[in-house]
């Protein structure tokens, strides 16, 4: 951006130091067409079919077309991509992609991308960072967003940060659920901020589960462990996937069969197995076993060393000797703040990019390795759009000051309130009800129960207990604010899921098991009503060249 326009000044406001952001945890890779045997058309089709035709095809086209350029830009900035012998960038295969097109930096792709971007950003003086500033509200006046109010965590100072345009890139909201691969900081902050400012959240019912996470920590055990021959067994040691139309067990792994079936099907099979009472039950709920012991120490150490490292270092399990307890865990939210193809939200001056946004290119199910690329493509688009908007809108309107004062009062009142409800209690009850009501399978009954529960929790939240009255790095205050964000976003998930009476991709309704293109080939848009409830509207999905077809994997193809 600065290279194109040095007159811009930019504030980066983040509740954590930039290199702590959750992109850092992404392992697999980022997809972009670069090899001669690949084509843009193929990447587009893989993305659209993977999304169960829920994505906007013009957005996918833009995404796929611009992906190689943005990825190369990151290469020029120093990202240590793995290489071929001839020095060109190497690619690896990935789930749902027909051709190898995933760029990777070992198994720490997100880490390297984030650090490369952050370190490169240090080069530019016009970027002013507000590290560890926690945003509590968007400033909206005169129909456009003109900045934010934020708390400086170290000092407790509450201050407006004005901007002629604002870009949200705060990530997803996995922490609404009890078991997630997401980091502690992913509480849907940006989604809630936009939602409260009147911006709709799109397609919130689509939430991706990954079938093999560690039950307690949600640490992801990569698909590669199954590709190398790891098997999933229930409490009787039985390879239960054979009961769910996923093929027959072989001693050697077979592509697109059994343990190598698609993520959503594997997660769904887990739920069925649990209903039959054939899963194990532990401290952290139900789980099954991923067994890699038969591969032996040598293969484990050479082919999936990171799996062993994660298990040993963070959960005290040795996969060479023990079976790994696993269960489906929340991985990614396809939905988010409604934006158009230029990353603009319906609210003037507000833009969004990344997991917080829904453009949409991920539809009902995101393909692995598209999300990191999405950050680059739509991050760049958001930057360009925001710069244009800022240039067209000089100055700020009066009236913002009173909003800032309001916000200060709200926060000070909260800090000095005498509530009785513990944050941790409300949070864990929210987790419970989201898992049971809006998890892998939903139905009208479970969703309505959860909806009621969330309303009850919202009411209790207004009486939340504050033990820490300090102005200095008050993490209890931020936990409370984050819980407020999560409760709001939870409501949109439930309402959107309730209204969508069909099953598609990651949204599976037991009472409506079929996909229904006639009624529901449209995006849900959840708006916040004045009473705090959600109203859901619909917007047709943009179909350009690829009419909806059947999503087929495996032998049928």
């Amino acid at each position, binding site marked *: 951006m600065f290279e194109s326009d040095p007159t811009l000044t930019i504030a980066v406001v983040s509740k954590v130091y930039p290199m702590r952001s959750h992109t850092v945890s992404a392992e697999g890779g980022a997809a972009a067409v670069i090899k001669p045997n690949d084509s843009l058309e193929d990447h587009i089709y893989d993305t659209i079919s993977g999304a169960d035709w829920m994505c906007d095809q013009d957005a996918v086209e833009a995404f796929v077309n611009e992906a190689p350029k943005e990825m190369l830009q990151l290469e020029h900035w120093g990202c240590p991509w793995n290489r071929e012998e001839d020095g060109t960038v190497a690619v690896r295969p990935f789930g749902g992609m027909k051709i190898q097109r995933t760029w990777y930096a070992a198994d720490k792709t997100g880490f390297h991308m984030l650090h490369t971007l952050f370190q490169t950003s240090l080069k530019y003086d016009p970027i002013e960072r507000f590290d560890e500033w926690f945003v509590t509200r968007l400033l909206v006046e005169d129909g456009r967003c003109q900045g934010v109010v934020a708390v*400086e965590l*170290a*000092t*407790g*100072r509450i201050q407006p940060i004005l901007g002629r345009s604002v870009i949200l890139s705060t990530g997803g909201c996995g922490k609404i659920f009890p078991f997630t691969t997401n980091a502690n900081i992913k509480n849907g902050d940006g989604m809630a901020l936009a939602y409260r400012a009147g911006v709709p959240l799109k397609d919130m019912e689509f939430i991706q589960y990954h079938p093999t996470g560690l039950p307690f920590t949600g640490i992801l055990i990569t698909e590669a462990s199954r590709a190398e021959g790891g098997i999933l067994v229930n409490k009787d040691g039985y390879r239960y996937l054979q009961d769910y139309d996923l093929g027959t067990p072989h001693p050697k792994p077979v592509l697109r069969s059994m343990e190598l079936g698609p993520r959503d099907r594997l997660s769904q099979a887990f739920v069925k197995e649990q209903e039959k009472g054939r899963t194990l039950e532990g401290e952290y709920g139900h789980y099954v076993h991923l067994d890699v012991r038969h591969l032996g120490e040598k293969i484990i150490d050479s082919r999936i060393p990171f799996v062993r490292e994660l298990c040993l270092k963070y959960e005290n399990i040795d996969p060479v000797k023990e079976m790994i307890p696993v269960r489906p865990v929340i991985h990614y939210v396809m939905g988010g703040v409604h934006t158009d193809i230029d990353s603009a939200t319906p609210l003037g001056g507000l833009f969004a990019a990344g997991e917080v946004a829904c453009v949409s290119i991920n539809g009902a199910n995101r393909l692995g390795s598209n999300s990191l690329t999405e950050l680059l493509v739509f991050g760049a688009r958001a930057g360009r759009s925001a710069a244009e908007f800022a240039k067209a809108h000089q100055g700020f309107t009066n009236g913002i000051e009173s909003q800032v004062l309001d916000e200060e009062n709200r926060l000070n009142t909260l800090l000095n309130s005498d509530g009785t409800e513990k944050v941790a209690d409300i949070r864990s009850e929210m987790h419970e009800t989201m898992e049971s009501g809006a998890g892998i399978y939903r139905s009208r009954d479970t969703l309505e129960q959860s909806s009621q529960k969330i309303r009850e929790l919202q009411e209790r939240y207004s009486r939340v207990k504050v033990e820490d009255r300090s*102005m*200095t790095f008050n993490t209890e205050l931020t936990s409370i604010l984050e819980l407020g964000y999560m409760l709001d976003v939870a409501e949109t998930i439930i309402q959107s899921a309730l209204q969508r009476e069909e099953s598609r991709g990651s949204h599976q309704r037991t009472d409506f098991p079929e996909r229904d293109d006639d009624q529901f080939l449209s995006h849900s848009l959840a708006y916040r009503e004045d009473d705090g409830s959600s109203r859901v509207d619909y917007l047709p999905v943009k179909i350009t060249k690829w009419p909806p077809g059947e999503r087929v994997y495996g032998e049928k193809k």
Partner: protein
Amino acid sequence: MNRNAHHTLHHPKWYRVQKPIFWWVKRFADIRFIFRELTSLAVAYSVILLVVIYRALLTSEAAYTSLTTTLREPFWVTINVIALGAVLYHTFTWFNLAPRAIVMRLGKWRIPDLMIAGGNYAAWIVISGVIYLAYVSG
């Protein structure tokens, strides 16, 4: 920020600790580090001894004989044993750390650290052997 500043609203007082003078006596690893650094004294002592030998050698046979006699005193033997221990520690730490600074290549192949350290040790043994043989064969 002033160490004695008081805490005021929005200007938190940070707490800072000054490292104690003898910070290194608390941890074994730190003592080991200081000991490694102090081997420098043993190295200096050893070369001074060498210079003293040279001086005696160049003065007269009597001076040299008197020096060798002095060196037989338990005091000097003890000093030399201690110095040798320290110098050996210097030798080992030096060889072990050398590969950290030096990257050597043969064509595309990067010589592993262990081999660089091993090469050091090998050279050391050979050189020490030569000195020993030169000395005993007189």
